[in-house]
């Protein structure tokens, strides 16, 4: 009978331990506002994920963790860049932690999963920085707004820049073979070919490609320029193979999405002078807002912020502005979402506001890698804007209806 007793005791302990997990909702006048932050803290994108958490905390610490007269509490959950995990964690934050709003996730393919949790539970989602075009175009959710960027939003200006500013007529793309890569690459292909440009070749590489030698060696001879869209550790591998195989002597490279601030410390002077990004944020933007943000970030974390940090910082600023406007009454979800949709924010990346489809209208910067002497970090590489496309919409110059009728960019 000992076994039976042990079993029953075990059952009781299990039941109790599960019960402890539930705590009665606090009934208080001005209880803190809880924000659930979904970021990959382990896995392939742990480094941008950490930067995202840093940027978010940096913002809230700078305003004493207060908004609309209420204290802000941040609960961070690890999504591991896996949509299943993101879904489970978003449900945990919404149901268990009872957060008032969600911010995140980072990986593009986690976006739709977390948006679904927002639809299920009604908890507003401030999508940052997942880029999936669908979310603010064909598959919109009333409780989801985006404060970062749509993938193809940075692709469109690139195509025009290649054709008009650089005078290129035939180029080769190196695209990351997943949704984000497809949307950025094909967005640029669209605007480039509409102007009359010709694509020599698009070389698709799976994320996590270990060896870029075959890629760089299959670039067609005589192509006008090579345009990489690569993510994660692939960025460094491409950089190394590019120079190892002497491609810098053969071809011109104009990157769409490549040399971000988080990899610059791992590169050397060979990067200087390369157009490394066409993006809605680079650390070298010359505005007081951005300088204050960058210097503070360097002071706190000893590194130059990339767009992941800025994006989370701006998501915080945006939420704070909206909460202040509605006096912190986040429980009125409609009012909160309306405030998020109507406020205009002066972010480090420049002025931002939402379009009618809940995607930011913002500047896109073409940037070049430069060497600068920083008082704290010493000699470092920095992305400096060389051209600004102002107030770029996710629909570029097309009418929204026209764009939506055309359908998503798919390989």
């Amino acid at each position: 009978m000992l076994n039976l007793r042990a079993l029953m005791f075990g059952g009781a302990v299990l039941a109790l331990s599960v019960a402890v997990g539930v705590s009665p909702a606090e009934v208080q006048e001005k209880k803190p506002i809880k924000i659930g932050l979904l970021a990959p803290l382990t896995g392939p994108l742990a480094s941008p994920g950490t930067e995202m958490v840093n940027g978010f905390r940096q913002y809230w610490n700078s305003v004493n963790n207060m908004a609309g007269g209420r204290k802000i509490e941040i609960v961070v959950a690890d999504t591991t860049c896996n949509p299943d995990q993101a879904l489970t964690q978003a449900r945990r934050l919404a149901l268990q932690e009872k957060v008032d709003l969600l911010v995140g996730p980072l990986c593009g393919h986690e976006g739709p999963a977390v948006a679904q949790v927002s639809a299920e539970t009604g908890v507003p989602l401030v999508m940052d920085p997942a880029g999936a075009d669908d979310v603010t175009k064909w598959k919109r959710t009333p409780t989801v707004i985006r404060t970062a960027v749509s993938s193809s939003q940075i692709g469109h200006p690139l195509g025009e820049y290649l054709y008009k500013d650089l005078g290129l007529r035939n180029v080769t793309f190196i695209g990351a073979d997943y949704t984000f890569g497809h949307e950025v690459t094909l967005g640029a292909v669209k605007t480039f070919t509409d102007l009359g440009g010709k694509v020599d070749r698009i070389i698709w590489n799976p994320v996590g490609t270990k060896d870029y030698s075959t890629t760089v060696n299959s670039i067609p001879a005589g192509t006008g320029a090579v345009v990489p869209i690569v993510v994660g550790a692939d960025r460094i591998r491409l950089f190394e193979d590019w120079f190892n195989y002497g491609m810098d002597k053969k071809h011109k490279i104009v990157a769409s999405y490549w040399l971000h601030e988080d990899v610059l410390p791992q590169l050397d002077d060979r990067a200087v002078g390369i157009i490394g990004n066409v993006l809605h944020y680079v650390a070298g933007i010359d505005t007081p807002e951005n300088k204050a943000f960058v210097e503070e970030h360097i002071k706190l974390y000893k590194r130059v912020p990339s767009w992941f940090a800025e994006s989370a910082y701006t998501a915080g600023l945006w939420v704070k502005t909206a909460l202040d406007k509605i006096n912190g009454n986040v429980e009125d979800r409609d009012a909160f979402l309306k405030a998020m949709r109507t406020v205009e924010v002066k972010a480090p990346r420049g002025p931002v506001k939402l379009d009618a489809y809940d995607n930011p209208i913002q500047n896109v910067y073409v940037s070049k890698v430069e060497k600068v002497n920083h008082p704290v970090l010493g000699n470092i590489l920095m992305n400096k804007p060389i051209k600004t496309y102002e107030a770029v919409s996710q629909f570029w110059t097309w009418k929204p209806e026209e764009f939506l009728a055309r359908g998503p960019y798919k390989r």
Partner: protein
Amino acid sequence: MNIRVIGIAVLAAVLALVPSVASEYWVGLLTQILIFGLLALSADLLLGHAGLFSLCHAAFFAVSAYTVAILQTRYGVTTIPAALAGLGAGTLLAAIFASAVRTRGVYFILITLAFGYIVWGVAHRWASFTGGDNGVTNVPPLTLAGVQIATKAHYYYFVLIVLALALALYRILTTSPFGLALRGIKSSETRMRSLGYRVGAHLYVAFVISGFYASLAGVLYIYFNRFVNPVAAGFPYSVEAILMAIIGGTGTILGPFIGSGIILILRNWVSGFFHYYTAVLGLIFIATVLWAPNGVMGLIKSLRSGNRGEGA
């Protein structure tokens, strides 16, 4: 035997009481543990009973989940036909992939690995049909005879009932002459062959049944998650299913569920306050291999072996 019946009754009672004491999140997590436990159990039918190490079970799981998701969201098919189609599609795929039983050992592992990657590749690449990386979202909740099972607690009970039936069948199957023949093949294939057993046919059928169980897990998963993307078909899920079975104890019914509980609680709950949980997972796995090769169930058995013989 008495202890076993009482044990099952107590376990069933505890499981049935969970939604009345636990929060919605814990009910959801427990549902997930049960579903992935079933996936682990399906892979364990081959590993623990027939001695075949399969790395493609996520394929059947995902194909059945995708079938249900696409039929429901795009063609408006109702739950029962969609679920049956899902089970059918997954099992059919298993009947094709079961050709792998012509190989043994490392070749079997490699060929199932390749099969798994094919399905992942299709889910990932055929974006116009499968939604690519973004997957299929907003699958409607399970609806039976016009009644929507939308709350977490109700769905949990639904999963419990389905599991009870599936596990009873599994038990009958593994203790039947067929199940015993599988065990015989696991311990010595040549002996079974010389005794006149059709080894190939046994393994083929076992593979298909195992695929059916993985498909059942896929159907339960899609109505729980209401979202599927290529990750569900990926290599990590196949490996995880096997790991769950090994940590919990292969060749048992409860083992895969214990393993699933350990892995999912570590990943979903412990990750909330301890960021090195993957290292913990690694340590658990190393400890299992070194000191408890028969998993948690093996440990329990060896503790009780004083009064009971080793049960096969």
